[in-house]
């Protein structure tokens, strides 16, 4: 066999995964994934959020030990979950989020992280610069050795990350969503660079979200769906965009069945939540909102589809008041709430099921009754004495949790002792109490089992039928199709497409991946 880091053995795959499986608790992140990547080519890996792409990349890089299966690089089996072994075998990773220390100069960061042989523990600046001069010149642009990392533009930082990864003379390069933060021109430059690497014999695996980008750069493509390999690796020339879309979002047999819900009847069409030309600042992980117009009326469920990271979190934050709209107007119950604090919006009947139930929805270490009572702490009820009765709070919490059939032993037990489905019931018991006008439900069924999922969806529909408004943000297209009266697709912080039932899965999928603008 070849020496680690040397050229891949002729004929054999550069990377071979055999029936990889990774589980996080009850969630199967990867299941039975077998994948061969031919040397000297650019392989794209696509899939919806939560499909297992990042997990697979981490397994390859040795950052995540698989529960089952193994990884071979250039014919050699890697010890599982060993970053250094993966590196020694010639595999380098570029992470989704930048990993170079922001306060270091370019030269310092490279010396620290690139682990090129010949370094010394004591150095002089001039010497350091000399060591890295050529590498940095290759990137061009604004990378000057004495610049601090934090002062560099994003695309230069990206180039540096790649250069750092390659400084170890890697033969396999894994990039996890490298385009997420880049401007279009920078993406083109990145792709050009990947092609040059390929021509130099490097095998590239790149995780991408957008089909346009896949078409632009990849030689082969593989699709992950729900932790399983749904397609590929297949040559790009042999696959149509439609087939890719189908593989990403689910089997066509289901897709063709037009699903929709009957609109509730007899309710007065009152606008409960409205966003008018709202823009917000971008966060570290997501684009901000750009010119978003949105209306939720009484008695309807409005769905928000989109690949995660396209502004859904910004949208919910701006509605909740956790983030302030830079431009535009937010109306809740017909009144301007653009500057209202979160508590004020709650008082107007806004209720929230947050994205991450364990960190945003509940306090894991606080007792159940306190979690259940959280909203009662912000209501502005005047009373003669400020004193409250804890027993009353506990009783009321117990009553409401019983109504929603939360299974628990004692109201004083910490919320972390509940299962995922039970936690969601606890959250619903708190949020879906009288006073609700409009509910924003973000990923309300993520990670729940079938029964709990069904329960949550029925609750949302029940709410709609009772005349409330619901904004449902989800990455589960089936959930959106089956429950939404109207469906919007977010892409890059904008609402790029609006659909009404019955939905065309292909069209929605295209809008989500940016194929249709």
């Amino acid at each position: 066999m070849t020496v680690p880091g040397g050229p891949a053995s002729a004929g054999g795959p550069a990377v071979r995964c055999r029936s990889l499986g990774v589980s996080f608790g009850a969630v199967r992140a990867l299941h039975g994934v077998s994948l061969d990547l031919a040397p000297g080519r650019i392989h794209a890996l696509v899939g919806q959020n939560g499909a297992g792409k990042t997990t697979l990349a981490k397994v390859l890089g040795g950052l995540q030990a698989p529960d089952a299966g193994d990884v071979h690089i250039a014919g050699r089996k890697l010890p599982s979950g060993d970053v250094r072994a993966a590196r020694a075998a010639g595999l380098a990773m570029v992470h989704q989020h930048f990993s170079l220390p922001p306060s270091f100069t370019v030269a310092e960061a490279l010396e620290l992280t690139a682990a090129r042989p010949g370094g010394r523990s004591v150095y002089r600046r001039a010497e350091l610069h000399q060591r890295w001069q050529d590498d940095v010149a290759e990137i061009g642009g604004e990378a000057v050795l004495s610049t601090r990392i934090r002062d560099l533009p994003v695309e230069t930082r990206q180039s540096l990350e790649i250069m750092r990864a390659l400084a170890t003379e890697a033969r396999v390069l894994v990039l996890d969503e490298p385009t997420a933060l880049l401007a279009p021109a920078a993406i083109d430059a990145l792709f050009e660079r990947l092609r040059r690497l390929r021509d130099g014999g490097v095998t590239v695996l790149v995780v991408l979200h957008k089909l346009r980008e896949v078409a632009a750069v990849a030689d082969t493509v593989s699709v992950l769906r729900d932790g399983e390999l749904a397609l590929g690796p297949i040559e790009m020339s042999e696959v149509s965009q439609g087939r890719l879309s189908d593989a990403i979002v689910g089997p066509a047999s289901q897709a063709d069945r037009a699903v929709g819900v009957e609109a509730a009847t007899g309710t007065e069409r009152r606008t409960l939540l409205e966003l008018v030309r709202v823009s917000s600042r971008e966060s570290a992980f997501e684009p901000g909102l750009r010119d978003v117009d949105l209306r939720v009326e009484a008695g309807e469920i409005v769905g928000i589809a989109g690949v995660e990271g396209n502004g859904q979190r910004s949208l919910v934050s701006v509605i909740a008041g956790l983030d302030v709209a830079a431009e535009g107007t937010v109306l809740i119950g017909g009144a301007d709430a653009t500057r209202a604090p979160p508590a004020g919006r709650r008082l107007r009947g806004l209720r929230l099921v947050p994205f991450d139930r364990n960190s945003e929805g509940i306090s894991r270490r606080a007792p159940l009754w306190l979690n259940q009572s959280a909203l009662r702490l912000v209501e502005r009820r005047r009373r003669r004495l400020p004193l409250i009765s804890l027993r009353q709070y506990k009783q009321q919490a117990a009553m409401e949790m019983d109504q929603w059939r939360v299974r628990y032993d004692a109201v004083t037990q910490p919320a972390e002792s509940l299962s995922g489905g039970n936690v969601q019931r606890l959250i619903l018991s708190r949020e879906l109490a009288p006073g609700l006008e409009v509910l924003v439900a973000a990923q309300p069924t993520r990670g729940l089992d079938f029964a709990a999922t069904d329960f949550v969806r029925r609750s949302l529909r029940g709410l709609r039928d009772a005349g409330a408004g619901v904004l449902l943000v989800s990455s589960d297209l089936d959930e959106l199709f089956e429950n939404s009266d109207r469906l919007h697709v977010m892409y890059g912080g904008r609402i790029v497409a609006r659909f009404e039932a019955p939905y065309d899965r292909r069209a929605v999928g295209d809008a989500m991946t940016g194929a249709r603008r």
Partner: protein
Amino acid sequence: MTGSLQRVASTLLLVGVSFLLTTLILWASGYRVSEVFSGVIEGSLTATGAATSSIRWAIPLLLIGLGVVIGFRAGFFNIGGQGQFYVGACCALVVSLGWRDGPAPLVVLCGTAAAIMAGSAWSLLPGYLRVRFGTDEVLTTLMMNFIGALVLQYLTAGPMRNPSGTGQTAASERIPEAFRITDGSGVSATALLLVGGVAVLVWLLLERTRFGLTIVLVGRNPTMARWQGIDVRRVGLVTFALSGALAGLAGAVELYGPGARLVTGFSPEVGFTAVVVALVGLLSVWGTAAAAIFFGGLQSAILFLPIVTDLPPPALVLLHGMVALLVTVKFRSVRWRRPGSPAEALTA
């Protein structure tokens, strides 16, 4: 209920283990085991004036400790009790000496109010930095302690210095006797009523108001609290102000009580012991009261030790330190302290 019993038991066990370890070390150094115990018992309880002295030291520990309880419950590691205590005492002193012919009740009331406000302000500065910029309050409150000590030193060695004083350490002039709420023993009905009343008020605030519950939610998970519409910054500022107010009040009680004047660097570790008191008291009001009495007794025993046994006072400082060490280890493992700032938690 069994959970809280367990926590009390494990804390008592921890204090027991500290005793054991201390005894072991002293025994290995050649002291008799019986001496350690008799020293503690006599110095804190049975010697003449020892019991009173225990209570005298428990008072500032309880007041500052209650402030620590409020801060820690909200997830803020306000360890600036010492500095807040000093500036509180200083402001009460300035008011009392500046208006020494005023009617006693009014002057004491004004002096106490000034102490409370000064303590709050001393605490609010790091509090504001914390909620506005995320500056680590452990560092800032700690640093504010040094500044507080220097303010005290400036006053006692400068403008408020007693010119006839001949002692080695600088001390202020004495306040008029009429202003005092206790004699030199530091214990009186007024002082006990005041401290007891404050403890009841703090208990009501923490256990019987919505704000008390809000503090717990913010302390346990600020991200969730924000999603629920709770103004986490406001809660943070209020808790910082309350912690400082209680420490400032302790400063006033010290001046109008046993002190009658301020000496440079008086009661140098009371603010830090109060943190241990709150932790040993499991951040509950009555637990803190019990722990304050225990540590008050220890403090008293340290002072009485040269009188009652051959054991050197540092022997009990060792015991004190041992409890502090073990309780801190336990506390860190429980992780009351939040792992990251609200902003981090939100974007993660």
